[in-house]
């Protein structure tokens, strides 16, 4: 049997829709599962149940060959005995302990010598040298995040659980640490589950992604699959970004970046991402369709293609175009009728450079 994480639980809170989650996926040394959904969707409750901090009324949680919860047979493993690393959204650093004290807190089973050695390794790995004797309140947000992460991984847990690991940081730090976190997770070779509501984090960090809304798991799959091929309208609405394709940065000048997607050139505004391999993400409402020859417009990207399908959704219609890669556009129903948009019709898609979002992903 392949190693697997399997979560199947029911948990109710008064005045909220019940959480009914069923997720099972194969796990390798460094598989990252993203629990993705809007706030209040129940993703944090699922994570806390895996940690042993919430007790579902019904269900089971299995990690490889270990059963952590099985209400049918009365198995309830305490959080102390699950050997997990857990990082809360606001880090929950111990204010009475120093940085080194926080990192060493979970190492009580080691001898003093081994404990100091392990703390030292963590200080090195998380670039906390010189801060060992500082108290948490003296640290910046980014440093606190690294201490919290170091504390969680120091006891070498079986599974790492991160609740919105980047949301407490300011925007520039968040982007920098997002890429750092990805390489760190791969380096640690530790399976992890990450809760987030940010689609860029889901794309950067995730190997598997579960979309959660109103207590239900809507879709489980590779992030790029989930973004570009949502099972249904609910998933599409929750993820909120219709076109996600892999691209490669081929040049940059004057603050603009040229990206190649299957040979099609796109211009984007140079932003946070620096890697060569990127995900190119475009919202459907940012795509303007033009008929015939491209006219003069402020949009930097004019992509010629043909309509693959047009689906009318009330007053709006979702049109998928093949322009070297599948591109989804949202237009009004009257445009569909006026332009005679149907399969095989040639169109030009105009996209402003600022609407082409690049999300870097290392190691792809």
């Amino acid at each position, binding site marked *: 049997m392949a190693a697997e994480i399997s979560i199947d639980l029911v948990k109710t809170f008064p005045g909220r829709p019940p959480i009914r989650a069923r997720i099972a996926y194969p796990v390798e040394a460094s598989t990252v599962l993203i629990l993705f959904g809007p706030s209040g969707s129940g993703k944090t409750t699922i994570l806390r149940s895996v940690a*042993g901090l919430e007790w579902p009324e019904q269900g089971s949680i299995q990690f490889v060959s270990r059963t952590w919860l099985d209400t049918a047979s009365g198995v309830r493993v305490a959080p102390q005995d*699950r050997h997990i690393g*857990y990082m*809360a959204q*606001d880090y*929950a650093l111990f*204010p*009475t302990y120093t940085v080194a004290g926080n990192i060493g*807190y979970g190492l009580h089973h080691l001898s003093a010598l081994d404990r100091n050695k392990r703390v030292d390794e963590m200080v090195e790995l998380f670039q906390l040298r010189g801060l060992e004797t500082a108290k948490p309140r003296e640290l910046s947000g980014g440093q606190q995040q690294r201490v919290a992460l170091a504390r*969680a991984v120091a006891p070498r847990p079986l599974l790492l659980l991160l609740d919105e690991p980047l949301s407490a940081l300011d925007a520039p730090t968040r982007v920098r640490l997002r890429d750092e976190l990805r390489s760190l997770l791969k380096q640690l070779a530790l399976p992890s589950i990450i809760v987030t509501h940010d689609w860029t984090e889901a794309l950067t960090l995730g190997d598997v992604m579960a979309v959660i809304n109103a207590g239900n798991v809507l879709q489980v799959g590779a992030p790029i699959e989930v973004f570009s091929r949502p099972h249904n309208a609910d998933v599409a609405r929750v993820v909120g970004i219709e076109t996600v394709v892999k691209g490669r940065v081929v040049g940059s000048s004057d603050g603009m970046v040229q990206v190649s997607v299957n040979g099609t050139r796109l211009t984007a505004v140079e932003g946070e991402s620096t890697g060569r391999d990127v995900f190119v993400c475009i919202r459907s409402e940012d795509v303007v369709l033009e008929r015939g020859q491209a006219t003069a417009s402020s949009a930097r990207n004019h992509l010629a293609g043909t309509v693959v399908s047009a689906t009318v959704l009330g007053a709006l219609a979702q049109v998928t175009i093949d322009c070297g890669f599948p591109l989804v556009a949202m237009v009004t129903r009257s445009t569909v009728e006026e332009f005679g948009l149907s399969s095989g019709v040639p169109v030009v898609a105009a996209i402003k450079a600022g609407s082409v979002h690049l999300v870097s992903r290392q190691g792809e």
Partner: protein
Amino acid sequence: MNWIAIWVTFKLAASTALILLVVGLPIAYWVSFSRRRWKFLVESVVALPLVLPPTVLGFYILVAIGPHSPLGRFYNELVGHPLPFTFEGLLLASVLYSLPFAVQPFAAAFEQVDRRLIEASWTLGVSKLGTFFKLIVPLSKAGLLTGAVLSFAHTMGEFGVVLMVGGNLEGETRTVSIDIYDEVQALNYAGAAKTALFLLVVSYAILLLVYAVNRNVWAAWPQK
């Protein structure tokens, strides 16, 4: 000044504070962390000495430890003399009388501790007891000190319970407040004034200590 009475009072207050530190911690822990519905029953019993007249409390304790009660008989057989009108009997009464003065600050301090810190400790493999001593106690030290000092100070000044349970035995149960009462009864106002001033100075010094330490603790650990 009656130094013997002062010594008895100090011994009683210090022993009471020490016992309450040991007995009060688990009660306060249970009160602040339990989710049981009937928690309010325990909370109100603990708070009862705050509203009961000391004579009423003293009367019930006297009956409960007297030679006709099972507890009193058991103690008599064990030690060889009855519990009422001894230092030990007085100590038991003081512990019960000062219970809320220790438990309430303890519980208030425990409730201030962020639950997410406690959960973080659990996920790091530290048991509930270990978490209590490694995390909760250091974070609650201001409240623990307040509770211990308040029960010390409260015992120093008790009168009704001492009179009911302890009596007025020199070197055994005659405390400072009883001594002042005796001096006034004997129209020795000068002696009473000296002892009263002593009690006032000591009580004020203790409160100064509590407030100074608490302020210092808050300055070092800014509340969120």
